[in-house]
């Protein structure tokens, strides 16, 4: 059984009198431990798919089933709790809280757990070590480079040990060298830590790090193929 299953999903936004069909009867299955790159032109519905998988948005019709759980059946409160336990988010612009240090940014999702203060701190430091920033725990986001901020964001995404990482253009704001480091890190998380990763990207080189590439156009799946060069 697939870990993530989008079943005949449609999504329509209404802006005033205008209706915008973003996704039309889209079905997509993502296997456990897959690393999927979602590609396609702007407005093709990539981010919408990501939002639906992450439980940030609801489909107009159809259903999203993740690890056997139908997201449309969950109340907002339960959906929030489900997100905290199952999904890690990585954004293009990092979205770290500027008032908090790297370590405290990473601890933030752990406030929703029953872990004690010492355990939260230890888990945050472990996550920082995984992303290679163990020596930057006391730095605030403004004291870190873009690549380092994205590493902290990834550490925050994995600290609660979710099974799925959804990444919205994680290298979109980085130079090539930093982008490569981030992609290598995601690949490591996928291969060593068995995280299922769904990544939206415009960059074919970034997509080369994935195991599967999915192309979307006008809200419909056009191609789904394994990436032969995935290392």
């Amino acid at each position, binding site marked *: 059984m697939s870990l993530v299953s989008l079943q005949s999903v449609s999504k329509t936004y209404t802006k005033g009198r205008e209706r915008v069909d973003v996704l039309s009867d889209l079905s997509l299955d993502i296997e456990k431990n897959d690393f999927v790159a979602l590609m396609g032109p702007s407005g093709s519905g990539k981010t919408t798919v990501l939002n639906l998988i992450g439980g940030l*948005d609801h489909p107009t019709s159809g259903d999203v089933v993740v690890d056997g759980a139908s997201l449309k059946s969950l109340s*907002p409160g339960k959906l*929030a*709790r489900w997100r*905290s336990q199952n999904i890690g*988010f990585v954004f293009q612009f990092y*979205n770290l809280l500027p008032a*908090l240090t790297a370590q405290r940014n990473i601890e933030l999702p752990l406030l929703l757990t029953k872990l004690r203060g010492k355990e939260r701190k230890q888990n945050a430091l472990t996550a920082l070590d995984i992303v290679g920033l163990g020596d930057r725990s006391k730095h605030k986001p403004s004291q870190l480079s873009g690549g380092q901020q994205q590493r902290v964001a990834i550490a925050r995404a994995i600290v*609660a040990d979710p099974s799925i990482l959804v990444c919205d253009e994680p290298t979109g704001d980085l130079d090539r060298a930093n982008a490569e480091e981030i992609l290598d890190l995601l690949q490591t998380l996928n291969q060593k830590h068995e995280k299922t990763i769904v990544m939206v990207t415009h960059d074919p080189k970034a997509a080369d790090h994935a195991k599967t590439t999915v192309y979307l156009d006008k809200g419909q799946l056009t191609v789904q193929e394994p990436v032969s060069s995935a290392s």
Partner: protein
Amino acid sequence: MGRIQFLLRCMFRHKLRTTLTMLSLVTAFLLFVMLRSVAVVFETGWVNFEEVRLTTQSKYSMIELLPLSHQDTILSIDGVVDITHASWFGGIFEEGETGDATFAVDPESYFDVYSEYVVDPDQLDEFKTTRTAALAPQSLIDKYGWEIGQKIPVISPIFPNPAGGPFVFDLVGSYSSTNEGNDFLAFLFHYEYLTDTFAFGRVGWYMLTIDDPERADEIAREIDSRFENSSDETRSMTESESFRQFASQIGDISLMVTGILSAVFFTMILLTANTMVQGYRERIPELAVMKTLGFSNSSVSAYILAEAMLMCSLSAAVGIGIGTLVVLGVQEYMPPMIPIYFDPVTCIWAGAIAVGLGVFVGSAPAINANRLVIVDALQAH
């Protein structure tokens, strides 16, 4: 990082803005405690005054004197236990020092009626037997550096000495009150010295003790009825009511204080609400991220509300603390005529206002945070 620490970090994300807002709130609560401590005196009277004590004064004015013959009539009324009298002398010890109270009193009965006053028995005996004797509270003795046995020259604009120059009293002792800080302790001298000098049998007012505080109004009415339609009609009331009426001659202090505090807190509401709304707008992406990470709508709005309440409560705690110290200091070291009294209820009110203010200014951002749609918020920023 715990939840409280997270709240504090968020609250002080703009240190200068938050600090300035909190300083404004601290000032507002400091003002609240100080002004209410004045107003409470005018609203309720001096709380330590004995309700078993009544005062009887002229019906028309406090400066109208009453005949000494009223004393026996009042004492004969059922329920009246003891009676004494005093007269405002308006004495001045040094040029420019007009704030000291000086009373001509009946030494035989004054300390019976004011049973909370403590005086050395030998000094009291000397006070009773010496026509020029005077007793002073320790605060006055310290103020002027007097010593027991010293002669004290006193000038009175109300009763100028017919012989010219000041009246001269022999300071035979000091007295104090068991009601620390809240009594109206005056320089006391022998009434006979005054009445012999001016050959008149009148007094400023009477103080009397009664056997049952529940009957205070009834006895007061009875006293006044005895002198109704006479040339010296009276007005009797409890001692605290008497003080309240005396103090309210300055004006409706309570209304003035309420007006000032309303203006202060209205401004505070605008200022704090502005800070909170600005903070909310700046943090919309952060709040969206929090929701993305799994914080529920209600928990995000609870954080916003808690932040507002924490800011108001911390400021209030500091303001109330400073205000309490200031009021207690004024109460302790200023002359008892300064109408200020620290009432713990004032602090409770201040605390309640702080919580109310926090809820009020935090509600709108909290509601908006609750309604925040993650996808829209992330896209917009």
